[in-house]
């Protein structure tokens, strides 16, 4: 909790300032909106944080989301498959892609950046080819209502003031991820591997298996969230769907305390990081700041956060150095 104090303060600061400048921020519909998007982005951010903790990176998330969404929508509408079956098939494909990433990285020793950069282009390309670059829709309001509830529904069902359903996914996935990372031997192995792969291997950790697992988790969550986004948008535009999402996810993970050097990170921090990203985006809209300023604001605030974090570390290190010098 102490580790996440900085990011909690940052989140509270952005929320309070926005609410003071524009009270409409606090309207139920707006809060529901922010929460729903936080949940969706939170899911892919948790995915990529596993990869980052293992010491790797995944740049293919946005494209994989587009490909998964495209396949899902085609199977469900044009091929008229059972939606549940289509859902499972797409999750299988996404998980397999993570497996391939992991094997290329551990067996062929390719660099994660290279593998997932190529993946980013490949999956985007596949999405465009199988859709022939056409936007694909889920159809009218009446179709796939049960499925759409997963992305746009509210709990309790039917209540306009309820909790957005994707938040349920975020909470479940977040709790499982937190337990995995902090309470199981595998989480410990992952952290050890991210800090010092060699020492972890010498200690008997199956480092390759742990790395592959991280990529599978990441791609699986990307595929899953891709379908949720498609249901939320009710359509997939293959050329733009999910653009930049991997970078939002990485930014949220870094804001949440993951070090790109690996071996560090907390799931709660990552979720808070995703929340900051969404609140910032929302406040730009609601304060009617022209959207062309969007990237300047988000980039600037993340950079300030990262700088503040490093400066705090330096100050702390100096203090403890002075303390140990004084005591010796």
């Amino acid at each position, binding site marked *: 909790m102490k580790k996440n104090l900085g990011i909690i303060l940052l989140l509270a600061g952005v929320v309070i300032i926005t609410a003071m400048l524009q009270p409409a921020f606090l309207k139920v519909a707006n809060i529901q909106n922010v929460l729903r998007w936080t949940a969706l982005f939170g899911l892919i951010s948790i995915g990529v944080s596993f990869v980052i903790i293992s010491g790797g990176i995944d740049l293919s998330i946005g494209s994989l989301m587009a490909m998964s969404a495209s396949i899902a929508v085609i199977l469900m509408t044009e091929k008229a498959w059972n939606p549940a079956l289509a859902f499972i098939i797409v999750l299988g494909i996404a998980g397999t892609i993570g497996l391939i990433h992991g094997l290329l990285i551990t067996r062929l020793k390719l660099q994660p950046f290279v593998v997932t950069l190529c993946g980013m282009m490949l999956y985007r390309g596949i999405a465009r080819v199988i859709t022939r670059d056409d936007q694909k829709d889920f159809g009218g309001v009446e179709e796939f209502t049960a499925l759409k509830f997963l992305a746009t529904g509210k709990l309790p069902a039917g209540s306009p003031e309820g909790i957005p359903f994707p938040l349920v996914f975020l909470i479940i996935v977040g709790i499982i991820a937190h337990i995995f990372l902090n309470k199981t031997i595998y989480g410990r192995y992952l952290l050890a591997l991210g800090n*010092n792969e060699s020492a972890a291997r010498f200690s*008997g950790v199956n480092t390759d298996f742990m790395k592959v697992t991280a990529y599978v988790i990441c791609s699986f969550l990307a595929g899953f969230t891709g379908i949720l986004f498609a249901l939320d948008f009710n359509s997939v535009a293959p050329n733009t769907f999910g653009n930049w999402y991997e970078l939002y996810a990485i930014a949220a993970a870094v804001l949440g305390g993951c070090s790109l050097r690996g071996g560090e990170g907390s799931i709660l921090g990552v979720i808070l990081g995703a929340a900051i990203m969404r609140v910032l985006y929302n406040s730009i809209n609601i304060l009617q700041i022209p959207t062309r300023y969007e990237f300047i604001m988000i980039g600037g605030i993340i950079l300030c956060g990262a700088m503040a974090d490093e400066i705090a570390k330096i100050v702390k290190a100096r203090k403890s150095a002075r303390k140990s010098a004084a005591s010796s």
Partner: protein
Amino acid sequence: MESNPEARPILSAVGISKSFPGVKALKDVSFDLLPGELLAVIGENGAGKSTMMKILAGVQAADEGQVLIEGSPADLTSVEKATEQGIALIHQELNLPTNLTVAASMFLGREPSRFGFFDQRQIRGRSAEALARIELDCSPDELVGNLPIGKKQLVEIARALSAEARILIFDEPTSSLSAKETRRLYEVIDQLKDQGVSMIYISHRLGEVQRLADRVVVLRDGEYAGQLDRHEISHENMVRLMVGRDISQFYQRVSHSPGDVLLEARDFLSDAHPDKPVNFSIRAGEIVGIAGLVGAGRTELVESIFGVRQSAGGRLVICGKEVVPQSPRDAISSGLALVPEDRKHDGLVLEMSVRENGSLPSLGRQARKGFVDSRKEVEAVDRMIGDLKVKVSGREQVVQTLSGGNQQKIVIGKWLATEPRVLLMDEPTRGIDIGAKQEVYRLMHELSANGLAILFVSSEMEEIIGMSDRILVMHEGSIAGELPRDQFEEEKIMTLATGGAADPRSVTS
């Protein structure tokens, strides 16, 4: 050249102190270097020799104290400034770039240039001159990477001379050289002495110190322990000052009657020397040392046994079962443990806590269905801290902040938690102080008395002679000979290690 006690020192270290997190590397060390003399600085690993030399060469800054050059304070805050003062360090790990020619590497960072372009003619001419000065037969156009290690070192010396160095510092220069290369180095050093170059020579090989030194300064635990003039330099005197007590007290090897064979290698091939089959066996309760020069394949052998490296073939029998571990995981489940050579890189996750490091290899035993049982984990780690007398502020202390000795205890402790039958140790006392060393030795004795088989690699002659029941001497990937306890002699070991023909009686195979 005999040193003249009346001469004004060319270099004086005055009250040098230096601390690293968790360890005081140097405490108020002072000594003089006289013009034209060869001063040997000796001490055990971790005594502070290398730190002292890094300070003189401008690699690290001292916390306290001063270095005087010809009587006036010198600014040694960077390597460039030290070079300007005429000080050059010949590194222990040779650090010439391998993809450059001899000439280019000699002038790296200070290339003579005309209008921003290399002045190739001057570079070639001056490097040929420097090579000639130490009579090194080598073309300036040769790639450094193609030279044997002995020649690389001589190129480094030539490079220092071409930079007008007046004070050369040698840091364990013969640790990776063959006997022939070593003799050649001695010749060059004699020539340099005749030319009036002052030299500081770090070593823990006492034989070569006796051969070369005009005077010896001894460091112990980061402190000045004493000095010996030319006529006082003897093996006994040096050891007494280095260890600070009688050597026989330091190592108290009591042999036990050995039990079953726990590790046996039959025509085993390590990855580094796939053409050199290795045969040996170790029994419960035995401590077997592997001696040899750096690069003889000792680390590669133990790492291949432990599955860190893929063995190239052959057979291993571990605790009665024939297995060749494919990974450290396999090795651990067969009953092996390895305390690796590079503690910081391979032994510990430095950023993690004592608890997390201490439980890492045995975490599966402290878990139920994959979930860590924190109570069990904490108990096991606390037991380790207590049993091994690890000095920590608490189990959550980050291991990075511990001294080398305490770090090494955690590496050993984390393995003991896996209850191994065979303990492999690669340079188990590298970079730790004398007190911690003694504790590591005591642990090794205790563990072997309890029936563990210990196979350890060491470059320290005293250690390998003092601790082993048997010594395997490796040379270029092969076991050149095996010595029983009554034949432990430094000379015999060195002869085998450098590929010299062994006295046939001394080899029992």
